[in-house]
Protein backbone atom coordinates (compact mmCIF):
# COMPACT_ATOMS: atom_id res chain seq x y z
CA UNK A 1 0.00 0.00 0.00
CA UNK A 2 1.20 3.48 -0.78
CA UNK A 3 1.21 5.73 2.27
CA UNK A 4 2.60 8.77 0.50
CA UNK A 5 1.79 9.67 -3.09
CA UNK A 6 3.28 12.88 -4.38
CA UNK A 7 2.70 14.34 -7.83
CA UNK A 8 4.30 17.47 -9.31
CA UNK A 9 4.70 18.99 -5.85
CA UNK A 10 6.08 22.52 -6.13
CA UNK A 11 7.00 25.25 -3.66
CA UNK A 12 7.91 28.71 -4.86
CA UNK A 13 9.17 31.54 -2.69
CA UNK A 14 8.50 34.60 -4.81
CA UNK A 15 11.04 34.12 -7.60
CA UNK A 16 12.90 31.24 -6.06
CA UNK A 17 11.67 27.69 -6.63
CA UNK A 18 12.62 25.60 -3.61
CA UNK A 19 10.88 22.41 -4.77
CA UNK A 20 10.27 21.98 -8.44
CA UNK A 21 7.48 19.60 -9.45
CA UNK A 22 8.67 16.46 -7.72
CA UNK A 23 6.77 13.14 -7.85
CA UNK A 24 7.36 9.98 -5.84
CA UNK A 25 5.57 7.30 -3.83
CA UNK A 26 6.36 5.78 -0.47
CA UNK A 27 5.24 2.25 0.36
CA UNK A 28 3.95 1.29 3.77
CA UNK A 29 6.68 0.07 6.11
CA UNK A 30 9.60 1.12 3.98
CA UNK A 31 12.47 3.39 4.80
CA UNK A 32 12.51 6.18 2.30
CA UNK A 33 15.49 8.49 2.11
CA UNK A 34 15.73 11.95 0.65
CA UNK A 35 19.31 12.77 -0.13
CA UNK A 36 20.62 16.20 -1.03
CA UNK A 37 22.94 18.99 -0.02
CA UNK A 38 21.96 22.00 2.06
CA UNK A 39 19.31 24.00 0.25
CA UNK A 40 18.24 21.13 -1.99
CA UNK A 41 14.65 21.43 -0.75
CA UNK A 42 14.50 18.53 1.71
CA UNK A 43 13.03 20.44 4.63
CA UNK A 44 10.66 22.30 2.34
CA UNK A 45 9.31 18.97 1.08
CA UNK A 46 8.87 17.57 4.58
CA UNK A 47 7.21 20.77 5.74
CA UNK A 48 4.72 20.58 2.90
CA UNK A 49 3.95 16.91 3.53
CA UNK A 50 3.39 17.62 7.22
CA UNK A 51 1.03 20.55 6.48
CA UNK A 52 3.32 23.11 8.06
CA UNK A 53 3.97 24.84 4.77
CA UNK A 54 1.42 25.43 2.02
CA UNK A 55 2.25 24.03 -1.40
CA UNK A 56 2.34 26.22 -4.49
CA UNK A 57 1.02 23.53 -6.80
CA UNK A 58 0.86 19.80 -7.32
CA UNK A 59 -0.82 17.21 -5.14
CA UNK A 60 0.00 14.80 -2.35
CA UNK A 61 -1.88 12.11 -0.51
CA UNK A 62 -0.82 10.92 2.93
CA UNK A 63 -2.47 7.65 3.95
CA UNK A 64 -5.15 8.44 1.39
CA UNK A 65 -5.84 11.92 2.76
CA UNK A 66 -5.45 14.78 0.34
CA UNK A 67 -2.94 17.45 1.32
CA UNK A 68 -4.59 20.86 1.58
CA UNK A 69 -8.08 19.38 1.96
CA UNK A 70 -7.83 16.88 4.82
CA UNK A 71 -4.93 18.40 6.71
CA UNK A 72 -6.26 17.51 10.14
CA UNK A 73 -6.43 13.83 9.18
CA UNK A 74 -2.88 14.04 7.86
CA UNK A 75 -1.67 15.67 11.07
CA UNK A 76 -3.00 12.73 13.05
CA UNK A 77 -0.95 10.16 11.15
CA UNK A 78 2.31 12.13 10.92
CA UNK A 79 5.12 12.14 13.42
CA UNK A 80 7.98 14.56 12.86
CA UNK A 81 11.50 14.93 14.13
CA UNK A 82 12.53 18.40 13.07
CA UNK A 83 15.96 19.39 11.86
CA UNK A 84 16.25 21.85 14.72
CA UNK A 85 14.89 21.01 18.10
CA UNK A 86 11.41 22.40 18.72
CA UNK A 87 10.82 21.48 22.35
CA UNK A 88 10.72 23.98 25.19
CA UNK A 89 14.18 24.33 26.67
CA UNK A 90 13.03 25.50 30.09
CA UNK A 91 10.53 22.70 30.57
CA UNK A 92 11.30 19.21 31.77
CA UNK A 93 11.20 16.25 29.42
CA UNK A 94 8.01 15.15 31.11
CA UNK A 95 6.29 18.54 30.78
CA UNK A 96 7.36 18.78 27.16
CA UNK A 97 5.94 15.40 26.26
CA UNK A 98 2.72 15.80 28.24
CA UNK A 99 1.92 19.20 26.75
CA UNK A 100 2.67 17.98 23.23
CA UNK A 101 0.40 15.02 23.80
CA UNK A 102 -2.41 17.33 24.79
CA UNK A 103 -2.26 19.04 21.39
CA UNK A 104 -3.52 15.73 20.01
CA UNK A 105 -6.24 15.64 22.63
CA UNK A 106 -4.40 13.04 24.68
CA UNK A 107 -4.69 12.99 28.45
CA UNK A 108 -1.70 12.54 30.71
CA UNK A 109 -2.62 8.89 31.16
CA UNK A 110 -2.92 8.31 27.44
CA UNK A 111 0.46 9.91 26.77
CA UNK A 112 2.14 7.77 29.38
CA UNK A 113 0.48 4.63 28.04
CA UNK A 114 1.45 5.59 24.54
CA UNK A 115 5.12 6.08 25.39
CA UNK A 116 5.33 3.07 27.68
CA UNK A 117 6.48 0.56 25.00
CA UNK A 118 9.36 2.86 24.05
CA UNK A 119 10.38 4.26 27.41
CA UNK A 120 12.79 1.53 28.32
CA UNK A 121 14.40 1.25 24.91
CA UNK A 122 14.82 5.03 24.79
CA UNK A 123 16.13 5.17 28.36
CA UNK A 124 13.66 7.81 29.38
CA UNK A 125 13.73 7.13 33.11
CA UNK A 126 16.92 8.96 34.01
CA UNK A 127 16.13 12.08 31.98
CA UNK A 128 12.38 12.21 32.57
CA UNK A 129 12.48 15.08 35.09
CA UNK A 130 15.44 16.95 33.67
CA UNK A 131 15.10 20.24 31.87
CA UNK A 132 15.38 19.85 28.11
CA UNK A 133 18.12 22.49 27.91
CA UNK A 134 20.28 20.49 30.31
CA UNK A 135 20.37 17.42 28.07
CA UNK A 136 23.20 16.43 25.74
CA UNK A 137 22.69 16.53 21.97
CA UNK A 138 22.09 12.81 21.79
CA UNK A 139 19.65 12.83 24.70
CA UNK A 140 17.71 15.68 23.10
CA UNK A 141 17.35 13.77 19.86
CA UNK A 142 16.05 10.85 21.86
CA UNK A 143 13.35 13.05 23.39
CA UNK A 144 12.62 14.57 19.97
CA UNK A 145 11.93 11.10 18.63
CA UNK A 146 9.73 10.29 21.62
CA UNK A 147 7.85 13.51 20.93
CA UNK A 148 7.26 12.38 17.35
CA UNK A 149 5.87 9.05 18.53
CA UNK A 150 3.32 10.56 20.88
CA UNK A 151 0.34 10.41 18.53
CA UNK A 152 1.05 6.88 17.35
CA UNK A 153 2.00 8.02 13.85
CA UNK A 154 1.81 5.83 10.77
CA UNK A 155 4.66 7.72 9.15
CA UNK A 156 7.70 9.04 10.95
CA UNK A 157 9.38 11.99 9.25
CA UNK A 158 12.94 12.71 10.29
CA UNK A 159 14.61 15.82 8.93
CA UNK A 160 18.37 15.33 9.13
CA UNK A 161 18.11 13.50 12.45
CA UNK A 162 21.84 13.03 12.90
CA UNK A 163 23.21 16.31 11.60
CA UNK A 164 25.41 17.94 14.20
CA UNK A 165 25.69 14.88 16.41
CA UNK A 166 28.93 13.23 17.38
CA UNK A 167 29.58 9.78 15.85
CA UNK A 168 28.53 7.93 18.98
CA UNK A 169 25.21 9.73 19.28
CA UNK A 170 24.71 9.27 15.56
CA UNK A 171 25.00 5.57 15.94
CA UNK A 172 22.57 5.54 18.85
CA UNK A 173 20.02 7.55 16.87
CA UNK A 174 20.38 5.07 14.04
CA UNK A 175 19.80 2.21 16.41
CA UNK A 176 16.53 3.84 17.42
CA UNK A 177 15.46 4.41 13.84
CA UNK A 178 16.21 0.83 12.89
CA UNK A 179 14.43 -0.40 15.99
CA UNK A 180 11.27 1.54 15.11
CA UNK A 181 11.46 0.30 11.58
CA UNK A 182 12.01 -3.34 12.44
CA UNK A 183 10.09 -3.79 15.69
CA UNK A 184 7.25 -1.39 15.05
CA UNK A 185 7.03 -1.68 11.27
CA UNK A 186 6.96 2.08 11.04
CA UNK A 187 7.20 3.85 7.70
CA UNK A 188 10.25 6.09 7.86
CA UNK A 189 10.71 9.16 5.69
CA UNK A 190 14.16 10.51 6.26
CA UNK A 191 16.27 13.30 4.84
CA UNK A 192 20.00 13.43 5.09
CA UNK A 193 23.06 14.82 3.50
CA UNK A 194 25.21 11.93 4.67
CA UNK A 195 25.55 9.47 1.83
CA UNK A 196 26.24 6.48 3.99
CA UNK A 197 22.98 6.96 5.85
CA UNK A 198 21.00 6.00 2.76
CA UNK A 199 22.75 2.65 2.59
CA UNK A 200 19.99 0.75 4.39
CA UNK A 201 17.08 2.61 2.83
CA UNK A 202 14.56 0.73 0.72
CA UNK A 203 14.30 3.69 -1.56
CA UNK A 204 16.46 6.70 -2.19
CA UNK A 205 15.50 9.92 -3.91
CA UNK A 206 18.31 12.26 -4.81
CA UNK A 207 17.36 15.88 -4.76
CA UNK A 208 19.35 18.71 -6.28
CA UNK A 209 18.19 22.34 -6.37
CA UNK A 210 14.58 21.30 -5.91
CA UNK A 211 14.62 18.65 -8.62
CA UNK A 212 14.68 14.89 -8.31
CA UNK A 213 17.71 13.85 -10.29
CA UNK A 214 17.51 10.17 -9.59
CA UNK A 215 15.61 7.56 -7.66
CA UNK A 216 15.92 3.87 -6.89
CA UNK A 217 17.12 1.39 -4.32
CA UNK A 218 20.68 1.97 -3.13
CA UNK A 219 21.74 -1.09 -5.14
CA UNK A 220 20.08 0.18 -8.30
CA UNK A 221 21.62 3.58 -7.93
CA UNK A 222 25.02 2.12 -7.39
CA UNK A 223 24.71 -0.09 -10.45
CA UNK A 224 23.66 2.87 -12.52
CA UNK A 225 25.92 5.58 -11.24
CA UNK A 226 28.72 4.08 -9.22
CA UNK A 227 31.24 1.78 -10.72
CA UNK A 228 33.26 -0.84 -9.03
CA UNK A 229 36.98 -0.40 -9.32
CA UNK A 230 39.90 -2.67 -9.50
CA UNK A 231 42.80 -1.25 -7.57
CA UNK A 232 46.07 -2.73 -8.75
CA UNK A 233 49.20 -1.96 -6.77
CA UNK A 234 52.01 -1.94 -9.24
CA UNK A 235 54.54 0.33 -10.87
CA UNK A 236 53.42 2.68 -13.57
CA UNK A 237 54.42 1.37 -17.00
CA UNK A 238 53.50 0.74 -20.61
CA UNK A 239 53.04 -3.00 -20.24
CA UNK A 240 50.71 -2.58 -17.29
CA UNK A 241 48.61 -0.07 -19.16
CA UNK A 242 48.26 -2.20 -22.25
CA UNK A 243 47.05 -4.99 -19.99
CA UNK A 244 44.52 -2.65 -18.35
CA UNK A 245 43.21 -1.49 -21.69
CA UNK A 246 41.90 -4.98 -22.35
CA UNK A 247 39.30 -4.49 -19.65
CA UNK A 248 38.71 -0.73 -19.45
CA UNK A 249 39.94 2.55 -20.82
CA UNK A 250 38.88 4.44 -17.70
CA UNK A 251 41.82 4.30 -15.36
CA UNK A 252 44.15 6.57 -13.46
CA UNK A 253 47.45 6.05 -11.73
CA UNK A 254 47.61 7.34 -8.21
CA UNK A 255 50.75 7.18 -6.05
CA UNK A 256 51.30 3.43 -6.05
CA UNK A 257 48.32 1.98 -7.82
CA UNK A 258 46.08 2.00 -10.85
CA UNK A 259 42.41 2.64 -10.16
CA UNK A 260 40.49 0.98 -12.94
CA UNK A 261 36.78 1.63 -13.40
CA UNK A 262 34.94 -1.40 -14.66
CA UNK A 263 31.78 -3.32 -14.04
CA UNK A 264 32.91 -6.53 -15.73
CA UNK A 265 33.38 -9.63 -13.72
CA UNK A 266 37.16 -9.80 -13.50
CA UNK A 267 37.69 -13.11 -11.78
CA UNK A 268 38.77 -14.90 -14.94
CA UNK A 269 40.85 -12.03 -16.21
CA UNK A 270 42.79 -11.80 -12.99
CA UNK A 271 43.26 -15.55 -12.88
CA UNK A 272 44.66 -15.51 -16.42
CA UNK A 273 47.09 -12.72 -15.57
CA UNK A 274 47.92 -13.86 -12.07
CA UNK A 275 51.62 -13.61 -12.81
CA UNK A 276 51.39 -9.85 -13.39
CA UNK A 277 48.46 -8.86 -11.20
CA UNK A 278 49.57 -9.95 -7.76
CA UNK A 279 48.64 -7.17 -5.39
CA UNK A 280 45.13 -5.96 -5.99
CA UNK A 281 41.73 -5.32 -4.45
CA UNK A 282 38.17 -4.68 -5.56
CA UNK A 283 36.47 -1.54 -4.40
CA UNK A 284 32.72 -1.54 -4.70
CA UNK A 285 30.89 1.58 -5.84
CA UNK A 286 29.58 3.69 -2.92
CA UNK A 287 26.66 6.05 -2.60
CA UNK A 288 29.22 8.83 -2.57
CA UNK A 289 30.17 7.90 -6.11
CA UNK A 290 26.50 7.99 -7.08
CA UNK A 291 26.12 11.51 -5.83
CA UNK A 292 29.39 12.63 -7.34
CA UNK A 293 28.50 11.20 -10.71
CA UNK A 294 25.02 12.68 -10.70
CA UNK A 295 25.81 16.19 -9.59
CA UNK A 296 29.51 16.57 -10.11
CA UNK A 297 29.63 17.66 -6.47
CA UNK A 298 30.94 15.99 -3.40
CA UNK A 299 28.76 15.88 -0.35
CA UNK A 300 30.06 17.26 2.88
CA UNK A 301 30.46 14.66 5.53
Amino acid at each position, binding site marked *: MKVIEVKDLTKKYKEHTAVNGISFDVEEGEMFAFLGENGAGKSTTI*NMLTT*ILGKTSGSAFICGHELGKEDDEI*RKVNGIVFQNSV*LDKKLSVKDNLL*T*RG*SYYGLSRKQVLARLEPFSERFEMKDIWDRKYEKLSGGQRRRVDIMRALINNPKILFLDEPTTGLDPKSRKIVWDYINYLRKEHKMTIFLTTHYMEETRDADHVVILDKGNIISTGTPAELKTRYAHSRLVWYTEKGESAESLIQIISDKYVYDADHYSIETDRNLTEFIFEHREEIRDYEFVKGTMDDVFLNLTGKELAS
Partner: protein
Amino acid sequence: MMDFIGFTKRNLIIYFKDVLAIFFSLLTSIIIFILYLLFLKGTFVDALNGTLNGLENFVSGADIDMLANGILLTGILGTAMITVPYTCLQTIVKDRESGVDSDICATPLKRWKIVLSYFTASTLSSFIMTSLILTVGLVVLNFMGDLHLSVQSLIAAYGMMFLGSASSTALFMLVMLFFKSSSTSTAFFGILSAAAGFVIGAYIPLSQFSEGVQGFCNLFPASHITSLIRNILLSGIANNIDSSIGGVDNGAFISAVKDTFSFNAHAFGTDFSGMNSVLYVGIFALICIAAMMVVYSKTYKK
Protein backbone atom coordinates in the same frame (compact mmCIF):
# COMPACT_ATOMS: atom_id res chain seq x y z
CA MET B 1 -10.97 21.35 24.37
CA MET B 2 -8.12 19.28 25.84
CA ASP B 3 -5.82 20.55 23.08
CA PHE B 4 -6.68 24.18 23.82
CA ILE B 5 -6.22 23.72 27.56
CA GLY B 6 -2.97 21.85 26.97
CA PHE B 7 -1.45 24.56 24.82
CA THR B 8 -2.66 27.30 27.15
CA LYS B 9 -1.14 25.47 30.07
CA ARG B 10 2.14 25.22 28.20
CA ASN B 11 2.11 28.96 27.54
CA LEU B 12 1.39 29.62 31.20
CA ILE B 13 4.21 27.47 32.53
CA ILE B 14 6.64 28.95 30.01
CA TYR B 15 6.14 32.24 31.86
CA PHE B 16 5.72 31.02 35.42
CA LYS B 17 8.68 28.66 35.34
CA ASP B 18 10.99 31.39 34.08
CA VAL B 19 11.96 33.33 37.20
CA LEU B 20 14.00 35.79 35.18
CA ALA B 21 11.10 36.54 32.87
CA ILE B 22 8.85 37.19 35.86
CA PHE B 23 11.44 39.50 37.36
CA PHE B 24 11.86 41.53 34.18
CA SER B 25 8.14 41.68 33.59
CA LEU B 26 7.78 43.34 37.00
CA LEU B 27 10.94 45.43 36.86
CA THR B 28 9.16 48.70 36.09
CA SER B 29 6.73 48.10 38.93
CA ILE B 30 9.63 47.38 41.25
CA ILE B 31 11.42 50.54 40.14
CA ILE B 32 8.29 52.60 40.78
CA PHE B 33 8.11 51.11 44.26
CA ILE B 34 11.74 51.95 44.97
CA LEU B 35 11.37 55.48 43.60
CA TYR B 36 8.32 55.86 45.79
CA LEU B 37 10.32 55.00 48.86
CA LEU B 38 13.05 57.39 47.74
CA PHE B 39 11.12 60.48 46.69
CA LEU B 40 7.89 59.89 44.74
CA LYS B 41 5.89 59.70 47.95
CA GLY B 42 7.08 63.18 48.83
CA THR B 43 5.84 64.63 45.58
CA PHE B 44 2.48 62.88 45.90
CA VAL B 45 2.04 64.15 49.46
CA ASP B 46 3.08 67.65 48.44
CA ALA B 47 0.54 67.63 45.63
CA LEU B 48 -2.17 66.42 47.99
CA ASN B 49 -1.28 69.00 50.64
CA GLY B 50 -1.34 71.64 47.94
CA THR B 51 -5.01 70.98 47.38
CA LEU B 52 -5.76 71.29 51.06
CA ASN B 53 -5.27 75.06 51.29
CA GLY B 54 -6.64 75.97 54.69
CA LEU B 55 -8.20 72.61 55.45
CA GLU B 56 -5.18 71.18 57.26
CA ASN B 57 -7.08 70.98 60.51
CA PHE B 58 -9.76 68.76 59.04
CA VAL B 59 -7.55 66.22 57.31
CA SER B 60 -5.07 64.00 59.12
CA GLY B 61 -1.61 63.34 57.78
CA ALA B 62 -2.36 59.64 58.05
CA ASP B 63 -5.22 59.99 55.59
CA ILE B 64 -3.01 61.87 53.15
CA ASP B 65 -0.44 59.08 53.52
CA MET B 66 -3.07 56.47 52.76
CA LEU B 67 -4.09 58.33 49.61
CA ALA B 68 -0.48 58.58 48.45
CA ASN B 69 0.13 54.89 49.15
CA GLY B 70 -3.03 54.01 47.26
CA ILE B 71 -1.90 56.07 44.30
CA LEU B 72 1.39 54.17 44.34
CA LEU B 73 -0.44 50.83 44.30
CA THR B 74 -2.54 51.85 41.30
CA GLY B 75 0.58 52.99 39.47
CA ILE B 76 2.28 49.67 40.09
CA LEU B 77 -0.80 47.80 38.89
CA GLY B 78 -1.15 49.96 35.78
CA THR B 79 2.43 49.31 34.67
CA ALA B 80 2.32 45.60 35.48
CA MET B 81 -0.73 45.42 33.27
CA ILE B 82 1.46 46.55 30.39
CA THR B 83 4.72 44.76 31.09
CA VAL B 84 3.41 41.35 32.18
CA PRO B 85 1.23 40.62 29.13
CA TYR B 86 3.97 41.88 26.84
CA THR B 87 6.50 39.52 28.40
CA CYS B 88 4.11 36.57 28.09
CA LEU B 89 3.29 37.35 24.49
CA GLN B 90 6.95 37.41 23.53
CA THR B 91 6.52 33.63 23.53
CA ILE B 92 4.82 34.07 20.16
CA VAL B 93 7.92 35.68 18.67
CA LYS B 94 10.25 33.18 20.31
CA ASP B 95 8.15 30.26 19.10
CA ARG B 96 8.23 31.60 15.56
CA GLU B 97 11.97 32.15 15.76
CA SER B 98 12.86 28.74 17.14
CA GLY B 99 10.45 26.78 14.97
CA VAL B 100 8.26 25.71 17.88
CA ASP B 101 5.33 27.06 15.88
CA SER B 102 6.06 24.50 13.16
CA ASP B 103 5.74 21.77 15.75
CA ILE B 104 2.41 23.19 16.86
CA CYS B 105 1.19 23.63 13.29
CA ALA B 106 1.97 19.98 12.56
CA THR B 107 -0.59 18.90 15.18
CA PRO B 108 -4.37 18.88 14.68
CA LEU B 109 -4.67 21.86 17.04
CA LYS B 110 -6.89 24.33 15.17
CA ARG B 111 -5.25 27.57 14.07
CA TRP B 112 -7.78 29.81 15.82
CA LYS B 113 -7.22 27.83 18.99
CA ILE B 114 -3.48 28.52 18.77
CA VAL B 115 -4.13 32.26 18.57
CA LEU B 116 -6.76 32.22 21.26
CA SER B 117 -4.52 30.18 23.52
CA TYR B 118 -1.67 32.69 23.39
CA PHE B 119 -4.26 35.32 24.18
CA THR B 120 -5.79 33.39 27.05
CA ALA B 121 -2.46 32.46 28.62
CA SER B 122 -1.22 36.04 28.57
CA THR B 123 -4.48 37.41 29.94
CA LEU B 124 -4.44 34.81 32.72
CA SER B 125 -0.77 35.37 33.59
CA SER B 126 -1.32 39.09 33.79
CA PHE B 127 -4.54 38.66 35.76
CA ILE B 128 -2.82 36.35 38.22
CA MET B 129 0.17 38.65 38.69
CA THR B 130 -1.84 41.87 39.00
CA SER B 131 -4.38 40.24 41.33
CA LEU B 132 -1.51 39.03 43.46
CA ILE B 133 -0.04 42.53 43.64
CA LEU B 134 -3.47 43.98 44.35
CA THR B 135 -4.09 41.49 47.14
CA VAL B 136 -0.71 42.04 48.77
CA GLY B 137 -1.12 45.80 48.36
CA LEU B 138 -4.55 45.82 49.96
CA VAL B 139 -3.40 43.66 52.86
CA VAL B 140 -0.46 45.98 53.53
CA LEU B 141 -2.64 49.11 53.24
CA ASN B 142 -5.16 47.55 55.54
CA PHE B 143 -2.51 47.28 58.24
CA MET B 144 -1.61 50.93 57.76
CA GLY B 145 -5.12 52.33 57.95
CA ASP B 146 -8.65 52.11 56.63
CA LEU B 147 -9.36 52.39 52.90
CA HIS B 148 -13.13 52.41 53.49
CA LEU B 149 -13.49 49.85 50.74
CA SER B 150 -16.87 48.24 50.06
CA VAL B 151 -17.23 44.64 48.94
CA GLN B 152 -18.57 45.85 45.59
CA SER B 153 -15.48 48.00 45.09
CA LEU B 154 -13.28 45.08 45.97
CA ILE B 155 -14.93 42.87 43.36
CA ALA B 156 -14.83 45.69 40.82
CA ALA B 157 -11.10 46.12 41.49
CA TYR B 158 -10.38 42.49 40.60
CA GLY B 159 -12.69 42.88 37.60
CA MET B 160 -10.51 45.76 36.45
CA MET B 161 -7.42 43.56 36.76
CA PHE B 162 -9.07 41.21 34.33
CA LEU B 163 -10.28 43.86 31.91
CA GLY B 164 -6.89 45.55 31.95
CA SER B 165 -5.02 42.29 31.38
CA ALA B 166 -7.28 41.25 28.52
CA SER B 167 -7.21 44.63 26.78
CA SER B 168 -3.44 45.03 27.02
CA THR B 169 -2.99 41.50 25.75
CA ALA B 170 -5.28 42.20 22.79
CA LEU B 171 -3.24 45.26 21.86
CA PHE B 172 0.13 43.51 22.20
CA MET B 173 -1.02 40.49 20.20
CA LEU B 174 -1.10 42.83 17.21
CA VAL B 175 2.21 44.44 18.12
CA MET B 176 3.91 41.02 18.20
CA LEU B 177 3.10 40.52 14.52
CA PHE B 178 5.70 43.12 13.61
CA PHE B 179 8.60 41.39 15.30
CA LYS B 180 10.56 38.90 13.27
CA SER B 181 13.07 38.12 15.98
CA SER B 182 13.05 38.06 19.75
CA SER B 183 15.97 40.48 19.86
CA THR B 184 13.78 43.22 18.35
CA SER B 185 10.85 42.40 20.60
CA THR B 186 13.18 42.52 23.60
CA ALA B 187 14.59 45.85 22.47
CA PHE B 188 11.08 47.19 22.14
CA PHE B 189 10.32 45.92 25.63
CA GLY B 190 13.12 48.14 26.92
CA ILE B 191 11.39 51.19 25.48
CA LEU B 192 8.00 50.00 26.60
CA SER B 193 8.96 49.38 30.21
CA ALA B 194 10.61 52.79 30.40
CA ALA B 195 7.56 54.46 28.88
CA ALA B 196 4.86 52.46 30.68
CA GLY B 197 5.21 54.29 33.98
CA PHE B 198 4.81 57.65 32.28
CA VAL B 199 1.96 56.62 29.98
CA ILE B 200 -0.26 55.55 32.85
CA GLY B 201 0.88 58.39 35.11
CA ALA B 202 2.69 56.40 37.75
CA TYR B 203 5.54 58.89 38.18
CA ILE B 204 3.77 62.12 37.38
CA PRO B 205 -0.03 62.34 37.30
CA LEU B 206 -1.29 62.65 33.72
CA SER B 207 -3.15 65.83 34.67
CA GLN B 208 0.21 67.62 34.76
CA PHE B 209 0.72 67.11 31.03
CA SER B 210 -0.71 69.00 28.07
CA GLU B 211 -4.02 68.05 26.50
CA GLY B 212 -2.24 66.40 23.58
CA VAL B 213 -0.05 64.20 25.76
CA GLN B 214 -3.02 63.23 27.95
CA GLY B 215 -5.00 62.33 24.84
CA PHE B 216 -2.18 60.18 23.56
CA CYS B 217 -1.66 58.40 26.87
CA ASN B 218 -5.34 57.69 27.17
CA LEU B 219 -5.36 55.90 23.86
CA PHE B 220 -3.89 53.01 25.82
CA PRO B 221 -6.36 50.89 27.74
CA ALA B 222 -3.95 50.60 30.68
CA SER B 223 -4.24 54.35 31.38
CA HIS B 224 -8.01 54.13 31.56
CA ILE B 225 -7.73 51.10 33.79
CA THR B 226 -5.35 53.00 36.09
CA SER B 227 -7.87 55.82 36.41
CA LEU B 228 -10.66 53.34 36.99
CA ILE B 229 -8.78 51.47 39.66
CA ARG B 230 -7.87 54.73 41.40
CA ASN B 231 -11.50 55.64 41.40
CA ILE B 232 -12.53 52.27 42.75
CA LEU B 233 -9.85 51.86 45.41
CA LEU B 234 -9.49 55.45 46.60
CA SER B 235 -12.96 56.96 46.33
CA GLY B 236 -13.83 55.41 49.68
CA ILE B 237 -11.06 57.10 51.60
CA ALA B 238 -11.42 60.32 49.59
CA ASN B 239 -15.12 60.50 50.39
CA ASN B 240 -14.31 59.75 54.00
CA ILE B 241 -11.94 62.68 54.09
CA ASP B 242 -14.58 64.77 52.38
CA SER B 243 -17.14 64.02 55.05
CA SER B 244 -14.63 64.74 57.79
CA ILE B 245 -14.19 68.17 56.21
CA GLY B 246 -17.93 68.41 56.50
CA GLY B 247 -18.72 70.57 53.49
CA VAL B 248 -16.75 73.62 54.65
CA ASP B 249 -15.02 73.67 51.25
CA ASN B 250 -18.06 72.70 49.18
CA GLY B 251 -16.25 69.57 48.05
CA ALA B 252 -13.34 71.55 46.62
CA PHE B 253 -10.71 69.30 48.16
CA ILE B 254 -12.08 66.01 46.91
CA SER B 255 -12.64 67.27 43.39
CA ALA B 256 -9.12 68.74 43.31
CA VAL B 257 -7.67 65.39 44.39
CA LYS B 258 -9.68 63.51 41.81
CA ASP B 259 -8.63 65.94 39.09
CA THR B 260 -4.96 66.00 39.99
CA PHE B 261 -4.61 62.25 40.19
CA SER B 262 -6.84 61.49 37.23
CA PHE B 263 -9.55 59.52 38.99
CA ASN B 264 -11.25 59.89 35.64
CA ALA B 265 -9.40 59.59 32.36
CA HIS B 266 -9.16 62.93 30.68
CA ALA B 267 -8.75 63.17 26.92
CA PHE B 268 -9.78 65.46 24.10
CA GLY B 269 -11.24 68.06 26.39
CA THR B 270 -13.60 65.74 28.27
CA ASP B 271 -13.54 63.65 31.37
CA PHE B 272 -14.47 60.00 30.82
CA SER B 273 -16.99 58.68 33.27
CA GLY B 274 -16.06 55.31 34.74
CA MET B 275 -18.64 53.67 32.52
CA ASN B 276 -17.26 55.36 29.42
CA SER B 277 -13.72 54.28 30.25
CA VAL B 278 -14.90 50.69 30.64
CA LEU B 279 -16.72 50.97 27.32
CA TYR B 280 -13.69 52.47 25.62
CA VAL B 281 -11.41 49.72 26.90
CA GLY B 282 -13.95 47.04 26.02
CA ILE B 283 -14.45 48.26 22.47
CA PHE B 284 -10.73 48.79 22.03
CA ALA B 285 -10.08 45.20 23.11
CA LEU B 286 -12.80 43.77 20.88
CA ILE B 287 -11.44 45.57 17.81
CA CYS B 288 -7.94 44.27 18.56
CA ILE B 289 -9.23 40.74 19.09
CA ALA B 290 -11.17 40.82 15.82
CA ALA B 291 -8.11 42.11 13.96
CA MET B 292 -5.95 39.51 15.67
CA MET B 293 -8.20 36.62 14.65
CA VAL B 294 -8.13 37.76 11.02
CA VAL B 295 -4.42 38.48 10.76
CA TYR B 296 -3.14 35.57 12.80
CA SER B 297 -5.15 32.90 11.05
CA LYS B 298 -3.24 33.99 7.97
CA THR B 299 0.19 33.91 9.56
CA TYR B 300 -0.32 30.34 10.74
CA LYS B 301 -1.36 29.25 7.25
CA LYS B 302 1.94 29.79 5.52
